[in-house]
Structure formats: C-alpha cells, structure tokens
C-alpha cells in the first residue's frame, strides 16, 4: 500500500496546516492532481465532517478523510497519504482528535474499495508501521517502511 502511494504520486508531506479544513484541502491535492477526484470533493468531505463531527479521526493522530461511495466528482477508487509534522486539531480541547497522518479515501467501485480498505487496515493495525509513518519525511521513507515492515 505504501509503495502504491509512491507509484501513484499519492502522497504529500507538509509542516503544518492552519486548521482542519486547510488540512482536508491539502490532503486532497494529490487526488486532484491526477484527476482521481474533482475540486469539490474536498468541500464535500468538509461538509460531512461539519455534519457528523470528527469521526474521521479513527485512532490517535490518524485521520481517514472521505465522503460517500460514488460521491459526485470521484473518478478513481484509491487512497492518498499525507503527513503533517505538526498535528492539526479536529475538536477543540480534545487532543484525542488531533491528526498528523491522513489517509484520504475516494471510492466509486465497492469491490476495489474493499480491497483498498483491507490493505489500509493492515497498515493501521501494525503499530511499528504507524509509529514510523509519524516520523517519515518523504517518499523514500514510505518505500523503506514498506520494505522493512510490510513486504513478506
């Protein structure tokens, strides 16, 4: 999965975001760049977080921004990765809803999406991998983590 992020150019490394909305716009950039999603996808994600709350922060420091399956303007079923050096807050006063790692989902094909989610879950269940991703600085780190921790 980490190798795919590199191969598809689906990654972004940044110092910080001004707020969570800014972070959502940033994490969608790689998906917009290759036409996987259209420009309004990020605004749909923001609207969904405003409606449902910061539930996309699925574990400490890890967010999984997404909108509905088959949302308007989604052309590929894929995932993009982003890492911020400084965590951004999704809920004021609740550091459990901070995020540094972003796995942005886009889906228009449920079978492919399910396969992607199995692979993502393999990454997120691996504490060593998550820990190393928090310290990653570029695509070469993603490849190294893939090789040392995930390739069997």
């Amino acid at each position, binding site marked *: 999965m980490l190798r795919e992020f590199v191969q598809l150019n689906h990654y972004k490394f940044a110092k910080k975001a001004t707020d969570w909305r800014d972070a959502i716009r940033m994490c969608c950039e790689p998906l917009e760049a290759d036409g996987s999603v259209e420009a309004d996808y990020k605004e749909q994600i923001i609207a*969904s977080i405003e*409606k*449902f*709350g*910061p*539930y*996309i922060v*699925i*574990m*400490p420091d*890890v967010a*999984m921004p*997404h*909108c*509905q*399956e088959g949302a308007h303007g989604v052309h590929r079923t894929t995932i993009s990765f982003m890492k911020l050096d400084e965590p951004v807050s999704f809920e004021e006063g609740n550091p*459990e809803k901070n995020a540094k790692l972003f796995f942005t*989902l886009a*889906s228009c094909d449920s079978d492919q*999406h*399910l396969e992607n*989610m*199995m692979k*993502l*879950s393999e990454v*997120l*269940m691996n504490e060593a991998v998550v820990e190393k991703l928090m310290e990653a600085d570029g695509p070469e780190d993603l490849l190294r983590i893939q090789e040392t921790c995930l390739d069997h």
Partner: protein
Amino acid sequence: MIKVLVACGCGMGSSQLIKQNCMAVLKKMGIENTVYHTSIDEAKTIAYDYDLVVVGENFVKSFKPKAGTVVLGLKNLMNKKELESKLQECGLDQQQ
C-alpha cells in the same frame, strides 16, 4: 448467532474497518456472527433489528436503542483489545 450492525458517517470508511475488526474479534471469542455495515442515517432506522451496534464513540448518542440492542462506542477503531474488552463488559460472550 448474533447480528451486528456497524456504522459511520458515510458507511464506507471507518465502518469497514470496524467490520473487519469486529469479525476478527468475535471469531476469536468464539461467537458466531453476521456483520452489516452502513451509514449512520440508515443505521438509526434499522438498529432495532440488531443485537449489537458498534460505532465510533461520537455516534453513540445518535442511537436510542430498545431493550435487547447493545450500542458500543469505540475510541480507537483499530484497537482490537478495546473492542474485545467492551464486548466482554457487555456480556455478549455469555449470550451464546
């Protein structure tokens, strides 16, 4: 056999992760199960038909379960230990 409903805002992200973990944990606990994942909006209307509802903790208050339906909220969706201990707390492992 217990019927489990898992849900998240849109029904495609976190609910799929919870589903995978639920199936793994229930299997480990030796509890036969069937798990359906969906969006919160749909889940609210069908929850009465399930034994167990598992969601992220901020969604727990969306449900007003009838007797017989247990609603569990998770802090860390990827932590199988949290899920297992919450399942044990609510006594589901006794209900075979």
